[in-house]
């Protein structure tokens, strides 16, 4: 049995788990107090991390050669989360291990080897690999996703999705800076990422914001009781001619705790406890959702040069506006500029009008957030800045929240979309 266990550990590639040193504090917390933990799981469906942390503990025990303890924990885990397929699979292996050697992770008996089970097994193994990858390659403390050049105080949280790790990171933003609050396993589209067309079963990549949530009462069980839509297609998507709609972050169906890494029609799907936690935490409209093929985590200092470079353009645009330099200001806008369907020619007169008053009472800008939509590897698309701000126009007390999309062309940044956005 000892030898068999070593094989299972090797199958799972969990040997690195045995020291447990890589586990962050939040994981360590759930490792203590097993009894209360199980009781808590039953009484509170939204216990964060719970299921995955316990699965990882099972893996850790396997890695440490403690199959009986692992079987004890896996028994509790599948009792608390009977629809956690991956946990059932490892539980099955630990039970099989009592009677025979385990040749591979998910060593199902030959009698169960039918059409469909091979694919299902492969997907569960992928889920296992993805959960591991995310837990092994944790973002370093003090780093943030490289899209976050600047946030406003209104952005209390940021959601960042790393498709390569099947992981959603939830960061909180406070005067002390950004820090990672939680991260969850997620599933993306059946055909992967980089959505382009309606029905292509892909998850879009880019900078989005949460929009109006769907009333849970209207949701089919498939969505697991909650959905947070994002603003796909955004102005840049429309500029590129992308189609499709209804991209949501949502929960899992009752019969599955989590879904396979690539299994959705383009949505980002979480386990229900994770989605509940997310819904209870984030504010709609003001929470950016970054979706990248692979996130790059950098320190704010490392991001400063890019931020300064772009701020120069932004400051020049502000100066032109407050100095009433209409011609100079006009040069900041791209020829294919768009304001909710209006061309630059149609839209410009209203801007020119507002400039006339600016010399007496200047424009003011507050709550400026700057996010850099980086060119994905292999993409011909340029870098895009998504700038959100409150604009106080001359003679008007209430500010208007606006968003601009700037596109990089050589050393120049040009605005191809500007418009007011809904804030509530």
């Amino acid at each position, binding site marked *: 049995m*000892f030898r068999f266990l070593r094989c299972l550990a090797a199958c799972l590639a969990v040997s690195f788990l045995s020291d447990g040193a890589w586990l962050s504090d939040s994981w360590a917390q759930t490792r203590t107090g097993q009894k209360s933990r199980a009781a808590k799981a039953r009484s509170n469906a939204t216990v964060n991390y719970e299921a995955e942390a316990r699965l990882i503990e099972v893996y850790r025990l396997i890695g440490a050669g403690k199959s009986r303890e692992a079987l004890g924990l896996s028994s509790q885990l599948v009792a608390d989360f009977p629809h956690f397929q991956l946990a059932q699979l490892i539980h099955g292996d630990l*039970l099989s291990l*009592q009677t*025979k050697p385990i040749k591979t992770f998910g060593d199902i*008996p030959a009698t*169960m080897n039918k059409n469909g089970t091979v694919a299902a097994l492969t997907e*569960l193994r992928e889920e296992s690999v993805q959960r591991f990858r995310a837990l092994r390659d944790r973002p370093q403390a003090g780093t943030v996703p490289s899209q976050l050049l600047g946030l406003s105080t209104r952005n209390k949280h940021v959601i960042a999705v790393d498709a390569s790790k099947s992981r959603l990171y939830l960061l909180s933003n406070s005067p002390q800076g950004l820090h990672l609050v939680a991260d969850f396993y997620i599933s993306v589209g059946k055909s992967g990422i980089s959505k382009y067309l309606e029905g292509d079963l892909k998850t879009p990549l880019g900078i989005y914001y949460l929009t109006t949530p769907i009333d849970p009462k209207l949701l089919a069980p498939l969505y697991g009781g909650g959905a947070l839509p994002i603003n796909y297609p955004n102005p840049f998507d429309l500029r590129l001619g992308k189609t499709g709609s209804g991209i949501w972050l949502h929960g899992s169906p009752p019969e599955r705790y989590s879904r396979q890494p690539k299994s959705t029609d383009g949505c980002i799907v979480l386990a229900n406890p994770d989605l509940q936690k997310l819904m209870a935490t984030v504010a709609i409209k003001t929470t950016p959702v970054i979706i990248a093929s692979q996130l790059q985590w950098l320190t704010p200092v490392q991001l400063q040069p890019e931020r300064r470079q772009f701020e120069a353009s932004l400051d020049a645009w502000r100066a032109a506006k407050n100095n009433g330099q209409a011609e100079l200001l006009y040069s900041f806008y791209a020829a294919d500029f768009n304001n909710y369907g209006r061309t630059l020619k149609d839209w410009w007169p209203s801007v020119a009008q507002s400039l006339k008053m600016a010399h007496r009472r200047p424009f003011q800008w507050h709550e400026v957030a700057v996010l850099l939509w980086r060119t994905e590897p292999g993409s011909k698309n340029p870098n895009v800045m998504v700038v959100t701000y409150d604009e106080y126009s001359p003679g008007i007390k209430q500010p208007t929240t606006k968003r601009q999309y700037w596109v990089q062309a050589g050393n120049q940044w040009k605005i191809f979309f500007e418009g007011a956005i809904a804030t509530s």
Partner: protein
Amino acid sequence: MTSTHTKAHLHSTLCSLLLVSALVVSQPVFADDYADVNRLIKANQMSEALSKADQYLALKPRDPQMRFLRGVIQSDSGKTNEAISIFSRLIEEYPELPEPYNNLAVLYAGSGQFDKARTSLEMAIRTNPSYATAHENLGDIYAKLASQAYAKALQLDASNTGVVPKLALIRDLFLPAGSRPSVNVKPTLPTVATAPATPVSPVVAPIQPKAPTVVTASPNGINQPSVAPPAVSNALAGQDAESAALAWAKAWSDRDMKAYLSSYSQDFSPPHKQTRAAWEEERKSRIMGKARIAVKLTEITVKVNGTTGVVKFKQDYKADSLATTSRKTLEMVKSGDRWLITKEISG
């Protein structure tokens, strides 16, 4: 396996042997001496424990309980070879006690000799037919639970994951003394201190060396037709007996109950004093309860004398997710032109 585990296993067995021996061995019980040594072992005072054990053994060198304790002391002191030799001697003298096998397995496993550990544990289980049955039943249950977990993992229809395992019921609780050791050797008692002095079971089996089970000779046939000289005849008959054993294994693998049951003679004596009908029923449920079975015989040796024969082999048995290897002996009799099984002995 960590050293703490090794110790834990040794200790759990240590306590039970004390009790078993107290029940089983027909000699005065010096519980105080055992308890003292046991206490010293628990307190990790190994040299004191060893000298106390040696003092005792100087007076009673054959005492199995104290020798067992000495084995535990040597094991805990890291003197693996000495411990192995003590437990091996105990096994030779008391082959029906499971505890020395278990401890030997722990020591083998601790030094990475897993095949030896496995064999030793299998022997421990085989010391009592009830253990073997319970073990086989437990294996079936683990396999079934694993199937259920896999079905949930793969979202299969749970009713589709094979038949419910048919477990073998142990039908005879009280066998005559001597036919097997007491069933109360299960190592579950926490400490010697709390082990009651009163016997747990009225069944007390004296330790006796097991009678050899090999049939070495059979009555000389008076009316044996002797067409060929006996040596040649026996060699041919040996081939026939071997073929019969292989056919029996094939029928078992094919789950061909008719062919399987007809491999057994009318005179076959079912184990555990079952009736032939009850035994057939049990075999049927056990064999047909499996989705697939593969029985492979290797290292076959045949001894034939006239119309009786003994076929010995190593039996590799695989059923669904259970796999075991064991030694087996079939005693056979020639009836007409067929060799039929009269006795089936494991181990």
